[in-house]
């Protein structure tokens, strides 16, 4: 790696000095993301304004062996946008344009720095629909969503970011720009590089532009809230609804401690003494929505829901779902440190998983709030703790390891939508197996031989920053 001053000089020559920062203050501000207990200072922070500048930066870093951490808004929850061994943090705050909305082909092309909500609002104003809606969509960027293959509340019916990325322009670690996919619905020309890049967590290249799929908006939607005295009855309802061949747009689960903190912040009238609630939304043609909601309501009641209430209007529905989106941050009201995982199981196993999580909480004497996208089996068990209590932190770690183990036992995965990052790198082998991990590492080595792209993420590194081989 170059000396920092030389690196800064050469980056300034590419970008202009005003877009290259290395003050203490800036290094600290880009030393973290939303993952607790991970923090490391980068050497330099850069804000390129276009693809050519990104290419020049990547070339320089490849030549000098400088790590690159691409970063959207830093809302990552697996320490995927945290620097680990210095290098540069690459920002997209100057690349926030919506380049094109192609109404004939139902696509939109954007720069990576546009925030998810800005994009969703824009396409909705134009009469289209972009479903991926991660909890952090007000702040998160499309580039970050693609790199992490973000999910969201509507994942159950509409899938995740992967299902909406049609084409990419990617700057590879050697500085070359690769154009993958395009506007064709059908395209089998060679390996699907688009899918390879989506969810690669910035370890294979830098996304410089994306073409996204749009849908026509649903005709109508309706939301209901079902209240339970028994947490497992709520989980069982989820399985029953799926078994009845109904796929709601959203089916969110919140347990009692989560309801309490969310209500404390949002004040939307959630029943704080209930053991659990389900927030269920269905969209589509209004007759279908009505019919589905009636069936759902019956199932909820059959599963001993103590109350089933429909949202009064769209505004009320939006308030309920917005309240759900802040659940994780609201948990921080209880304890100084909130550590969340997103272990995911096949949806038929949601009830069993919820039960297992409660057992694990008791076994390790830790406080766990559970909420999440119950409909797609993507749960968010969140441990409330205090990073200063080292003894408890040890138990927290053990509890999470056991949650991962349980999820895999049920045929699930260690992460549904937050990514592996640094946080879950030690557990990837449990899910992928040795041979699976080997294939992944071979791809990484082939494309990024110098390991400059977001090193330490997905795969564990040794102290020299090299990937630990299987």
């Amino acid at each position, binding site marked *: 790696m170059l000396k920092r001053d030389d690196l800064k000089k050469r980056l300034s020559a590419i970008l202009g000095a005003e877009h290259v920062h290395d003050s203490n*203050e800036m290094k*600290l*501000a880009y030393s973290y993301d939303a993952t607790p207990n991970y923090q490391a200072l980068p050497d330099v922070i850069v804000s390129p304004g276009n693809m050519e500048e990104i290419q020049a930066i990547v070339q320089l870093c490849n030549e000098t062996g400088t790590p690159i951490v691409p970063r959207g808004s830093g809302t990552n929850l697996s320490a995927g946008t945290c620097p680990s061994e210095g290098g540069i943090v690459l920002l997209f*705050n100057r690349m926030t344009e919506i380049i094109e909305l192609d109404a004939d082909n139902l696509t939109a092309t954007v720069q990576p720095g546009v925030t998810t909500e800005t994009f969703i609002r824009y396409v909705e104003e134009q009469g289209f629909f972009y479903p991926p809606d991660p909890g952090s969509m007000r702040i998160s960027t499309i580039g970050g969503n693609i790199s992490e293959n973000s999910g969201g509340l509507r994942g159950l019916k509409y899938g995740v970011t992967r299902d909406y990325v049609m084409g990419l322009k990617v700057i590879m670690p050697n500085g070359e720009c690769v154009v993958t996919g395009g506007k064709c619905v059908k395209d089998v020309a060679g390996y699907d590089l688009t899918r390879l890049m989506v969810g690669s967590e910035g370890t294979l290249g830098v996304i410089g532009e994306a073409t996204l799929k749009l849908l026509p908006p649903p005709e109508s939607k309706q939301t209901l809230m079902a209240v339970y005295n028994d947490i497992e009855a709520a989980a069982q309802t989820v399985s029953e609804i799926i078994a009845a061949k109904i796929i709601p747009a959203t089916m969110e689960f919140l347990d009692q401690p989560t309801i309490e903190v969310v209500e404390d912040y949002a004040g939307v009238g959630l029943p704080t003494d209930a053991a659990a609630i389900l927030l269920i939304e269905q969209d589509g043609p209004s007759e279908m929505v009505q019919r589905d909601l009636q069936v759902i309501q019956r199932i909820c009641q059959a599963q001993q829901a103590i109350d089933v209430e429909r949202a009064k209007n769209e505004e009320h529905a939006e308030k309920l779902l917005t309240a759900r989106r*802040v659940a994780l941050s609201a948990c*921080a009201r209880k304890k*100084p*440190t909130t550590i969340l995982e997103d272990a995911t199981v096949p949806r038929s196993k949601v009830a069993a998983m919820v039960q297992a999580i409660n057992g694990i909480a008791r076994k390790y004497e830790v406080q766990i709030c559970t909420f999440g996208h119950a409909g797609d089996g993507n749960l968010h068990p969140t441990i409330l703790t205090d990073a200063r209590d080292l003894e408890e932190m040890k138990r927290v770690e053990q509890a999470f390891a056991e949650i991962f183990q349980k999820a895999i036992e049920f045929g699930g995965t260690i992460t549904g939508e937050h990514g592996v990052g640094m946080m879950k790198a030690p557990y990837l082998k449990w899910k992928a197996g040795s041979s699976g991990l080997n294939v992944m590492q071979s791809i990484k080595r082939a494309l990024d031989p110098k390991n400059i792209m977001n090193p330490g993420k997905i795969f564990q590194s040794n102290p020299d920053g090299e990937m630990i081989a299987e």
Partner: protein
Amino acid sequence: MKQTEEVKQAFEQRMDHTELMNCMRCGFCLPSCPTYVETGDNEAASPRGRIALMKGVVDGLIEPDEEVEKQLNLCLGCRACEPVCPSGVQYGHLLEEARDILEQHKQRPLHERALRRVVFHWLFPNHKRIRQTVSLLYLYQKTGLKTWVQKMKINQWLPKHLDEMQSILPNVPSPAEMKHRPAFLGAKQPVRKRVAFFSGCLMDTLFMSTNDATLTLLQLAGCEVVIPKTQGCCGALHGHSGEKEKAKELAKRNIAAFESLDVDAIVTNAGGCGAFLTEYQNLFQDEPKWRKRAEQFTGKIKDFSEILVECGFHKAVPLSMPEQMVTYQESCHLRNVMRISQAPRLLLESIDHVNVQELPENQYCCGSAGIYNIVQPELSMKILDRKMKQVQSLQPSLMVTANPGCLLQMRLGVKQAGLECDIRVEHLADVLLESVPQEMKNHGRGGENG
């Protein structure tokens, strides 16, 4: 170097470690922060970034260098990040504590130290001196000196933003008027409440007519109003500028002035003062006795708009104005700290013939932020420009504010945009009084006892 060590130690000792950790860095605050948005999404200029900087100093990750200090000073203190924070982090308190530490260890040049002493210790704590200073302004405005200064272009010697500021100051009341203020006003309707009025320092001099309007409205709403003479400046200016000890002194004086009064509420009409008053208890973390007294005091603080709504003023008094479009520009501290947002709108909507429209982004600070527009003119003007774009897109004929700083800043924006003839900027109290029928204003004048 020794000084840096002392600052680090003070951060370690004085900053609330748990509160720093309560920020779990989700970033939900980012889009609400005017300085984050105006700096092109610079994380360091965001609430999350600033808390990380404070924690970085506490944890010994970075030195409390000039950059860190600059960044903390760049914060408007508008606290728009607090209502949107799901974790409920009390950002404002962290910022005030950090600024106080930095200020106490700062070696300012002699002339700056002298100026700060004059402003924070000599002028604001002493109401008589405030009055005398404002009286000088009166002479400047009334004797033709202002015209002369403008003719001779002497004002050009002032930095541009200060010159602009002096040009939009309201017409000041005479020294005699400022001296003779009432101590009690009876209700002009059957008595519903007995309240005390917090007059403020600038509000009772520079903006005396707004205070008078507020008092009349309270009387019309059926309030008996007590105005204790021993009260003084709220200390917000001190608290926000790293002068915590002086702020405490002023807080104690006000608590003592109001605590023995038998009243239902202590009423304010300036969001900035009101917000600081509601948080007096935070100044006394280490003085439990004063903390308790402060809590009793802060429990009674209410904005006048709340009191008017509680008394049903808007239903009892037939309010009316010529037909026009009106917009309400929130006072950040009224909205984000006192959490009052509905009452002013409800009152405005009760005025006949008035079409109340929402200003886009009205939750964003106007850039006034106490003395921010004086000490950070560059960013303040950028933020004001953004605000004025929204104003120009809406084109109201009247902009209503709820704090004197916002009022001046918006007048400045309107003046800079050359819209003085098209858009009036007024305080809510003045607008409401304007819409009260003339006969009610004069009728049944309550007992006055100066």
